């Protein structure tokens, strides 16, 4: 999950609500910080002593509020202050007609929008870096590369309300996008601007495109692609901001705005809501005031929490633990009603609250207890067969090999002269990164030839084996292929001969307790007349032979190789 960069003194100042001036806060030790990071499932990945930059990885993909300096500091601050100080703007009505009008038709393109204004916080260098980073991380990871959620931040002073969110023809609107010098139409932005090229596919197939304009018909941005350079470029020193979020999931859109509102408020800004007016009713109504507390709460039996954690806690302890973690809690008789803070929306199940109780109290507060149940351990039948076979092969003087199962059609099929044969069918991958790793092996011999080809300097004779999984295409199987365990063996040296490997096979089958017979087979990977199908109880379960010289040539192997492949899964099923 995301790794973010924050600055230590910025973080320290945010530990006090409203953000105190630099230098007036006591520095935090790295040990203390690492301890605190347990509250946010964070891990310190790097610390630059000179610049004070900290790199922190956040694990929880359901807690986007923590992917920023403000969020991390907030979670720690609440713990220290004992309770979350409520954000006033979630209870407020809109001020001075700050409204945003959504035009019809957007429900087919990018339906939802949320916005607010932030006044009274003068943007600092670190604050700006955090704003940009949070915008990127939320849009990229939480917003699925801007598909579900994207964010725009503007200089409020240049905007006249009401703002409109509407659809225009691609060449109907034009503005100078961020990062460009000239005025461009939306169509041009999609074709030329790097962000247009990167994210344009989100709007593929749309004849009309979304645009945000102000009351004077001045374009603010072309969501989710790019902001206007005129209005949508925030600089250090700006103290009046307009924030908007657009997207396809209304709850995620509002939550994202809530996070930005809380972050700016933590830095000292006064947040004023915006009323979004939809043409039709939405899950949150026709007129939606944002930011909005989505009021996710749950009543939970304290007993449920105690059972899950294996420890008696009582209502009071649970209530306190949740409050210092940011919840709004009211205690009942043997129950607690826990309400998430407005910047969170990750309460799906009582167990989510249980974990927060544990994290809030600290995992160290819970003494480990050994599970007392008695169970019988054991290996699967195929693993037992496979272990037995491996033991016998070691006794026969073979060195075990472990190979990647993923490889190339060239090595598993083409070099083996198996193109267009039944033996050459494989499970192939649609989105391979390279041909080298684009299919699963269907038999073992190529894995062993891989080692043989790379080891002509290792002293001879070479006796190699591998017992492992292969994938055999099978149209009758529900998954289109069967995963089976195959034992492959090769002997390679100047006078390697069929009878040598045959003797090994014979001993192997004798001690596995299986009668087998060999039937001549024409297999393209082997010399004709020197290959046999291994048959047990009338069923073919493998092949043995002298590897065809053309195969050896293709692998650039310069000594004769004899081999067998035995399907241990099928062998096990036969008894």
């Amino acid at each position: 999950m995301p790794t973010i960069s924050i600055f230590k003194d910025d973080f320290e100042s945010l530990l006090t609500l409203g953000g105190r001036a630099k230098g007036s806060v006591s520095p935090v030790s790295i040990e203390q910080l690492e301890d605190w990071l347990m509250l946010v499932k964070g891990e310190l990945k790097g610390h630059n002593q000179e610049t004070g930059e900290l790199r922190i990885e956040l694990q929880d993909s359901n807690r986007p509020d923590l992917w920023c300096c403000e969020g991390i500091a907030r979670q720690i601050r609440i713990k220290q202050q004992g309770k979350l100080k409520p954000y006033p703007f979630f209870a407020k009505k809109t001020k001075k007609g700050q409204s945003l009008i959504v035009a019809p038709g957007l429900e087919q393109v990018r339906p939802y929008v949320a916005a607010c204004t932030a006044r009274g916080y003068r943007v600092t260098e670190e604050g700006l870096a955090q704003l940009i980073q949070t915008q990127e991380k939320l849009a990229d990871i939480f917003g699925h590369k801007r598909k579900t959620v994207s964010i725009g931040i503007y200089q409020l002073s240049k905007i006249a309300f009401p703002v409109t969110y509407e659809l225009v023809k691609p060449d109907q609107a034009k503005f100078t996008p961020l990062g460009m010098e000239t005025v461009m139409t939306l169509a041009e932005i999609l074709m030329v601007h790097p962000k247009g090229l990167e994210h344009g596919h989100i709007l593929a197939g749309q004849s009309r495109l979304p645009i945000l304009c102000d009351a004077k018909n001045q374009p603010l941005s072309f969501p989710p692609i790019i902001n206007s350079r005129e209005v949508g470029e925030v600089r250090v020193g700006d103290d009046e901001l307009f924030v908007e979020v657009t997207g396809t999931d209304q709850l995620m859109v509002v939550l994202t705005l809530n996070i930005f509102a809380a972050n700016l408020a933590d830095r000292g800004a006064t947040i004023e809501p915006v009323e979004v007016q939809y043409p039709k009713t939405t899950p949150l109504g026709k007129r939606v005031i944002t930011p909005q507390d989505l009021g996710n709460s749950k009543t939970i039996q304290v007993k449920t929490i105690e059972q899950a954690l294996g420890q008696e806690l009582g209502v009071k302890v649970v209530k306190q633990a949740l409050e210092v973690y940011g919840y709004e809690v009211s205690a009942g008789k043997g129950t607690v009603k826990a309400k998430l803070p407005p910047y969170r929306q990750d309460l799906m199940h009582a167990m989510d609250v249980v974990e927060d109780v544990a994290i809030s109290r600290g995992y160290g507060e819970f003494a480990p207890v050994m599970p007392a149940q008695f169970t019988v351990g054991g290996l699967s039948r195929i693993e037992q067969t496979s272990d037995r076979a491996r033991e016998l092969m070691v006794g026969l003087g073979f060195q075990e090999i472990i190979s990647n199962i993923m490889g190339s059609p060239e090595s598993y099929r083409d070099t083996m002269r198996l193109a267009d044969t039944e033996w050459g069918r494989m499970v192939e991958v649609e989105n391979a990164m390279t041909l080298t790793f684009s299919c699963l092996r269907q038999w073992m011999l190529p894995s062993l030839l891989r080692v043989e080809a790379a080891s002509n300097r290792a002293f001879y004779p070479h006796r190699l084996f591998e017992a492992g999984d292969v994938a055999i295409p099978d149209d009758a199987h529900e998954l289109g292929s069967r995963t089976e365990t195959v034992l492959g063996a090769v002997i390679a040296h100047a006078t390697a001969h069929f009878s040598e490997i045959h003797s090994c096979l014979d001993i192997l089958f004798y001690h596995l307790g299986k009668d087998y017979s060999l039937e001549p087979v024409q297999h393209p990977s082997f010399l004709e007349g020197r290959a046999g199908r291994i048959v047990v109880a009338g069923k073919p379960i493998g092949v043995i032979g002298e590897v065809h010289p053309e195969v050896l040539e293709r692998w650039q192997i310069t000594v004769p190789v004899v081999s067998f492949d035995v399907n241990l899964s099928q062998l096990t099923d036969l008894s």
Partner: protein
Amino acid sequence: MDTSALIDSLHPLEIKVIMALGSRPAGTVLETEQLAAAAELEPSQLSMAIEWLLAKSLLVVHAETVTPMVSLTKVGEQYVSGASPIERVFSAAREVTSTGKRLTIPDLQAQDGLDPSDVSKAVGRLKKEGVLLIVQGGCIESTGRPSPTVEVIRVLLQQVSEASRELKSFPEAHRQVIEDYAVKRGNAKEPFRVDDRVTRSFMLSPAGVAAAEHLAKEGVAEEVSQLTPELLKDGSWRNKRFRKYTISLRAPRIGTGKKHPYREFLDTVKTKLVSMGFQEMRGSLVETEFWNMDALFMPQFHPARDVHDVYFVKHPTHAAKIAAPFLSRVTKAHQDGGKTGSTGWKYAFNAERAKRLVLRSQGTAVSARTLASAPAVPGKYFSIARCFRYDQVDATHATDFFQVEGIVLGEDINFRTLLGLLNLFAREVAQAKEVKFLPAYFPFTEPSVEMHVRHPRLGWMELGGAGLFRAEVTLPLGVTVPVIAWGLGLDRMAMVALGIHDIRELFTDNLDLIRTTRGIF
């Protein structure tokens, strides 16, 4: 080295040579052939013994003589039973003269098996001897005289055909013919060859004389190099001496049958888990998105389900169906929680997407299948499963790798027993006494834990992750008791223990490396 130690180190062949010389009058000098006869050794045995004795300075070379020897070449051997070119020209000339036929030099040169240059050389020599005339029309005719060259060649071919002879044993006239008909540089087709034979003669050094006296006085028990069944059978080993070896020499290399070092490590883990009461689970390399992700409550819009994270199968692209009732229950869990007590992810679950075939990307898929197959309660299960991730292959990422994962089901399972189980793993698998538990995130567990241990040699490291399966996972699969899901990250521990720094080396193709890497206990 004193004499008796020296004597002990002598090989039987060496003793034979020393005795052959030592039993003769002091200062006896013998040539190689004479020495072979005296010591009763084959030439190859003798030459070995001589080299060893020279190296030990028990024997010295007295003299080295060079003798030119005459022998037959391959061509010469053919002439013994057939006829040489000069003989053929000579008899052809006699025949045409007596029958009155005409024969030109080109006719001769065209005859089967005759080389034009040999014909020219023969005609020239015979003409010079007055044996042959060239008459009108370039025809040849015999004068009726005998040819000394032809006669000498015949005699020489007979004389040398048995064995090579010293050049100087031939009369002067014969030596001249040999000279003319011997292979030289640029003329390889002649019947004779003259080689230098180098003959060395040997005598004992003073140390050799001392050794010989010692051997004569003490007598030699017959020395043998190898105890044989025969020696044991008739008890004659009692009268033998066994040659001593230089035991400080390096042992010869042999290839051995051996488990792969990484497998040995995994086998140890496997044995530990079985001893702790875990039953092994097996799964399929190809899975549906349903079992790989949906059943684990990973929403279909989860970032880790992207084409850039998972490998999709080319053909067939989808499974025919997902077993009931799991598909409908999981669908509900995702959409609105169903009967799990959850709100669900609140999105429209795509059943077609659930059937999409992928390469198993996490071992937890195997656990999901087990949960759905009415597992025992209480029950403990594990798998060592090969998994595939869409990653650029480098020192820390392999295309496929092993995941050691499992589940524990039981009425008494809770957060504290989860920590207890992890403690057990830390002690048994990593031999660690100090453990740290950190909050963690996995889409399918709540609460989730990451376990760090202080390994006796490796210091603090992450050993694994675990948690209690979410109700959204267990209830749709028919399991009503709490379930621990755990996974151990053993790759790094194995790599450090095996002394390798690149994950790709776990599956290396370098046989030397595999043969020489020691396993871990």
